[in-house]
């Protein structure tokens, strides 16, 4: 941080600003941003327009020990997401009742659609204390922002039903020993859809274990809009996840994984929700009575803009299949945004969805 000495006040009335722009931005941020937005065409301090996003860059598969990984850079915000899979044995789950039956045979009717949530099979965590910004230094427990981001991501993961419960189950089909005398072969295999004969004494498939996905998100650099970047990294990493083929070995009584890449499978995800955050910047800092005051809705804010606004709107949209679905709307603080502005924000979000889903789906 260099010390700045500003030149003595000039007697020349024609002289322009005696401070460089950065000093002006630090000394009086609100008028600085207002001065950028007021003229027509209005631009923000970072020379974007009010509805212009930063260009995202996504990189997959760079981490060796993670089943799936993504590095997302949106402007100066850089996020690394690593997904590791671990095995949770069904016998380790307290109060677990053994679930049997073929997939889709009515498990959902038995009320297990909340399986991933009840068993905590998806564990996202957002770590901000990595020195990504001067406010987030390590050595502290997660503060309000980190905890609230983790919770929002957790609830969006489950409410969007992006991962089907079946993807995380590990079935075991006990061999049919009734025909032992005839062919004497003992096959230990996982489910095969071919021999689905309904014999009464054929032992049923059962779920022996589950995959638990630990989703760890680390912020390398933070310049505003952490939620969008974190969600984009999760989505991209989930697309990248490759789970090895896991099976129950009855002799050793444990779950083993096969290391052949051909047998491993990628997760099939439902939909592609994209999060878009905006802030509202008001012309008057303090509310001075009622009256028409100017305001601007700025999408994809950076740290400077976030510090000046107290009203924030986040929408999560999914336009797969041509129809726009809203998976979440969150509005915090302020009284400016009404139905008209909301419609505008959703329109902008649809545009962003096209860009992000093309990038994520490769």
């Amino acid at each position, binding site marked *: 941080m260099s010390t700045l000495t500003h030149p003595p006040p000039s007697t020349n009335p024609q002289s322009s600003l005696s401070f460089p722009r950065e000093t002006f931005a630090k000394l009086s941020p609100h008028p600085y941003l207002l001065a950028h937005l007021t003229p027509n065409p209005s631009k923000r301090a970072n020379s974007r327009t009010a509805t212009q996003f930063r260009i995202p860059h996504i990189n997959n598969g760079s981490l060796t*020990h993670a089943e799936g990984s993504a590095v997302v850079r949106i402007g100066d915000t850089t996020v690394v997401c690593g997904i590791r899979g671990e095995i949770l044995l069904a016998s380790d789950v307290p109060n677990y009742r053994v679930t049997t039956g073929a997939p889709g045979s009515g498990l959902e009717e038995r009320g297990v659609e909340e399986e991933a949530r009840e068993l905590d099979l998806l564990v996202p965590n957002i770590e901000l204390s990595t020195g990504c910004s001067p406010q987030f230094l390590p050595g502290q427990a997660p503060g309000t922002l980190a905890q609230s981001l983790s919770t929002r991501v957790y609830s969006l993961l489950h409410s969007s039903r992006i991962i089907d419960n079946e993807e995380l189950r590990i079935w075991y089909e006990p061999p049919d020993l009734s025909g032992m005398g005839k062919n004497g072969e003992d096959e230990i295999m996982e489910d095969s859809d071919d021999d689905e004969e309904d014999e009464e004494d054929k032992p049923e498939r059962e779920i022996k274990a589950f995959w638990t996905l630990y989703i760890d998100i680390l912020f390398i650099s933070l310049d505003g809009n952490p939620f969008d970047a974190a969600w984009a990294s999760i989505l991209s990493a989930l697309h990248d996840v490759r789970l090895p083929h896991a099976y129950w070995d009855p002799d050793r009584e444990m779950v083993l994984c096969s290391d052949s890449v051909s047998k491993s499978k990628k997760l099939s995800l439902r939909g592609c929700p994209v999060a878009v955050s905006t802030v509202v910047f008001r012309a008057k800092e303090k509310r001075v009575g009622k009256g028409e005051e100017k305001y601007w809705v700025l999408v994809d804010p950076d740290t400077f803009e976030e510090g000046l606004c107290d009203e924030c709107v986040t929408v999560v949209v999914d336009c797969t299949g041509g129809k726009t679905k809203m998976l979440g709307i969150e509005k915090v603080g302020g009284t400016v945004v009404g139905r008209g502005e909301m419609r505008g924000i959703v329109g902008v979000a649809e545009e962003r969805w096209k860009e992000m889903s093309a990038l994520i789906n490769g």
Partner: protein
Amino acid sequence: MTDRRRINGPSGGTSTPIYSSYLAKDPKEIPERPTRTRPPNVLRKMFLKTGVTPSASGSAYLELEASKNPNSTAPGLASLSTSGLKLTCTVHGPRPLPKSAPFSPHIILTTHVKYAPFATRKRRGYLRDNSERDLGVHLETALRGVIIGDRWPKSGVEVIITILEGEEDQWWGDDIGRGAIGAAEWGMMSVLSGCITVASAAIADAGIDCVDVVAGGVAAVVRSGNGGKAPAPALVLDPIPSEHKEIVAACIVGYLPGRDEITDLWVKGEIGHDNDASSGSASYEELADNAVQAALGSHRVLVAALKETADVKLGRL
């Protein structure tokens, strides 16, 4: 242990997936250990870049490539590959100390080193454990002598390192519970050497005055087990623990080439010294010299990266 501020996994506890090739008894089924293809005095290619975190005073990113198994061309599954080294470092400061802190006539250096949860084969938690504190202390020792602290009284500087991918202590194929002897933490040596180099780049990026640019280098005495006879141990620079069957000793130094000084030296393992007339085995002095050579190699990459940074910064002015 449930951490109430984080989202916890299943309360029953989960286990790392065990691969069937771990348990294979037939030696033909076990994939081969990666072997060292470089000559013993050649370092790995290093990628170093500064300025990855614009909001911090200074930052840097270091990446060392992973060793590839020459026999397999197909991409392996996550848990069976050997990892490289990926570190990021951010420097915040010099900042004023809080008012409650006692007066200090020189700058106070604080270091934090943290493994990301996905950095190693076994998932690490979010709370700092002893090995991370150990690395932090060594890093502080290495950097303390380099910064000209008297220019900033009553100030503090924080050096924060996040390890995105860390070296492993041994090849996973050796780890299968066959030996009850766990490997000593050889992976930490390469990690520390990388930490010193990347911290040095970030401090230079932050514009903090230093007497010289400190670089980290690591060397090891390894023994490759090929059958019955025990071959003579060899000295290698920049060892990858998973490439060697047995590491006898390893040494890491933080070295200042301009002044020919060592700021930090850490040796692990069994090693004799020059006065011992044991033939064939390396001595402590040789090991330290080799580590200094490795540090010189890192220094070259460091200086090239810093030159680029200086060009960018001055070009901007």
